[in-house]
């Protein structure tokens, strides 16, 4: 009897507590935001939402961590099919073409801002960043949020040990070969490694050399684009990596960002990867490090052009009540404010999304105090060409996996560069054909 009473009391008090908690929430409109920023970055996302919520009382942005990028996207797809999608969804750059093709599912940011009556000036965003998320008709489809690009990190201590000038990072791939050889001679078991094989060594490599990764401006101009990364320039570069891999100058350390650990642990002396790795290296690396631009082949005309962006943007889902879109528009406007965007940029190492945020950061002397943090920015703030604006391909997640699979055959000596790249292009093109067929009806 006593037990029963206790249970009743517990349930009753819980119900009351829920009612009390729920009461003030009914006055505000909740905007659910699914994201994939784990670790230190989750704190950043939560702070953004908190500060926005405190700046006004009508709307409440609720950030929800949904795992990795692909997990967040999968979760959103499942939720949409079940009829309860979030209001705002963070999608990584390779999902862009898929989201774009889903016209009935997402509402372009331009439209969100227009219906909400919030002024929105696309020209205030960094062109290479916003260009990636712009439709051929000029509409901005998603809000640039955390954009990164490919840079080179190097271990200054390892450079000193090898008798190299720690203030002189390699600029061209010819420099790289010399530096790697010297590092190896000084006892390094891993002179050079890279993360994101496709993004760094093929996608960004292509735009950096003003060469197409796929036809039609890398798919920016239409669905019938086809892969072209088995061109002589690509064969030359991957062929070099093959040679360096055999000579133990370059070491493959796995797919996606796995190689980051091998650099942070001090095993590898040079590392190419996302500029967003900055926070990790700074926090966990027990050595002096420098940041530099990606190497290039000096004899290629137009190189260096600009590197390609990675990271993610925020997409707005259709089918929500009208007041949600007003709240989303205000939140997006808040995120793009110079001081907010500048703080985000400085905190995370991601690119500034607006020009004003970049100028504000420069004025504050941040780049002088944190040398190297401007490398990613200067690689991006350039006038882009049709070949370097960005890469937008359907089924891109699978294409990247195919590239990983085929390149692994090179490093393990099962295929030569030409065989592997030709197969990757062939397998990738089959996916592009399917995407074109499925989305052109």
């Amino acid at each position, binding site marked *: 009897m006593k037990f029963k009473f206790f249970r009743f009391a517990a349930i009753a008090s819980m119900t009351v507590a829920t009612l009390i908690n729920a009461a003030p929430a009914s006055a505000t409109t909740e905007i659910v935001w699914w994201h994939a920023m784990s670790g230190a970055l989750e704190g950043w996302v939560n702070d953004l939402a908190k500060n926005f919520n405190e700046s006004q009382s009508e709307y409440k942005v609720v950030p929800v961590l949904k795992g990795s990028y692909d997990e967040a996207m999968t979760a959103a797809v499942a939720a949409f099919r079940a009829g309860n999608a979030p209001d705002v969804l963070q999608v990584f750059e390779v999902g862009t073409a898929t989201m774009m093709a889903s016209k009935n599912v997402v509402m372009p940011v331009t439209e969100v801002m227009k219906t909400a009556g919030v002024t929105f000036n696309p020209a205030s965003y960094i062109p290479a960043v916003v260009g990636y998320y712009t439709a051929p008709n000029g509409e901005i489809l998603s809000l640039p949020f955390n954009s990164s690009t490919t840079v080179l990190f190097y271990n200054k201590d390892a450079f000193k040990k090898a008798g190299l000038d720690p203030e002189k990072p390699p600029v061209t791939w010819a420099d790289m070969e010399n530096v790697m050889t010297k590092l190896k001679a000084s006892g390094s078991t891993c002179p050079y490694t890279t993360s994101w094989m496709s993004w760094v060594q093929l996608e960004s490599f292509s735009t950096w050399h003003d060469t197409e990764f796929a036809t039609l401006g890398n798919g920016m101009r239409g669905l019938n684009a086809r892969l072209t990364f088995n061109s002589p320039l690509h064969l030359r570069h991957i062929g070099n990596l093959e040679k360096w891999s055999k000579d133990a100058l370059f070491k493959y350390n*796995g797919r996606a960002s796995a190689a980051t650990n091998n650099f942070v642990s001090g095993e590898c002396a040079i590392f190419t990867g996302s500029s967003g790795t900055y926070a990790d290296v700074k926090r966990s690396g027990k050595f002096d490090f420098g940041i530099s631009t990606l190497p290039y082949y000096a004899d290629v005309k137009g190189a260096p052009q600009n590197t390609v962006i990675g990271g993610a943007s925020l997409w707005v889902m259709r089918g929500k009540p009208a007041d949600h879109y007003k709240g989303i528009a205000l939140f997006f406007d808040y995120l793009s404010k110079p001081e907010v965007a500048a703080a985000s940029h400085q905190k995370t190492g991601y690119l500034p999304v607006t020009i004003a945020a970049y100028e504000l950061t420069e004025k504050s002397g941040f780049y002088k105090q944190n040398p190297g943090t401007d490398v990613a920015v200067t690689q991006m703030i350039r006038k882009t060409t049709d070949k370097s604006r960005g890469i937008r391909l359907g089924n891109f997640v699978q294409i990247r996996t195919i590239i990983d699979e085929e390149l692994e055959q090179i490093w*393990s000596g099962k295929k030569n560069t030409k065989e592997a790249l030709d197969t990757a292009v062939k397998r990738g093109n089959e996916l592009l054909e399917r995407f074109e067929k499925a989305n052109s009806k």
Partner: protein
Amino acid sequence: MEKKVRFKSRWLPWVLIAPQMAVILIFFFWPAAQALYQSVLAQDIFGTTTEFVGLENFQRLFHDATYLESFYTTAVFSALVATIGLSLALLLAVMANRVLVGTGIYRTLLIWPYAIAPAVAGVLWLFMFASPMGVVSFALKSLGLSWNQLLNARDAMVLIVIAAVWKQISYNFLFFLAGLQSIPKSLIEAAAIDGASAWHRFRTIVFPLLSPTTFFLLVINVVYAFFETFAIIDATTHGGPGKATSTLVYQVYYDGFKAMDMGGSAAQSVILMVVVIVLTVLQFRFVERKVQY
């Protein structure tokens, strides 16, 4: 002797099996029917457009050389997981059955891995084998043995087999132990008095009497290797290097949940279902004959 139980009431037996039938219908037949339906459709990822494409999803699969290769990978993987998993578990069960002191501790420790999620099991083993920090890879290196699951297909296969076997060993152990304990002691003692050696007793008495358990576990382990190991593979090798550890079920998972190609993934799961049904029927027809109940 009459073995069958006869119910007087007509509806009582149906009521008694109804909950189990409901579970089977909802959790097995309904999803299987959904997979069959999805496998003949082409949808965009959000499911806003749906088109009936007949057998196109299947045709594409059988034209894909890498898909056909994964049949071979799956066969190797499943055979290794089932045989190593069963033999190790049997060995452990026989040993644990003879332990006199601290039985509880031994058994608890051996059952422990079963409580661990497959993905965690995968990550656990990956950490041990990952260079440069992994304990095992470090030990192998100091012994002068090279280990690289990132590029060596055989090393990668060994890694996922170890992780998959380790995850399932507790389950096998539990059933073997129960099987061993149900063997009458008097039989073994009689044989011992007749002068049969330990190995002889095991081979001629224990093993045949365990055969129903072994057969049951064989079916379960094959099903396990075919269906439940995708999380381990995803956490350790992602199917690489190349496609060397990309089994059928990992492909289903990858195409369905990473690539979000529902039609293709459903078609693969239908094929996988057919393969496992055929295998199970074969096992019941040919292996079960050797089983003594």
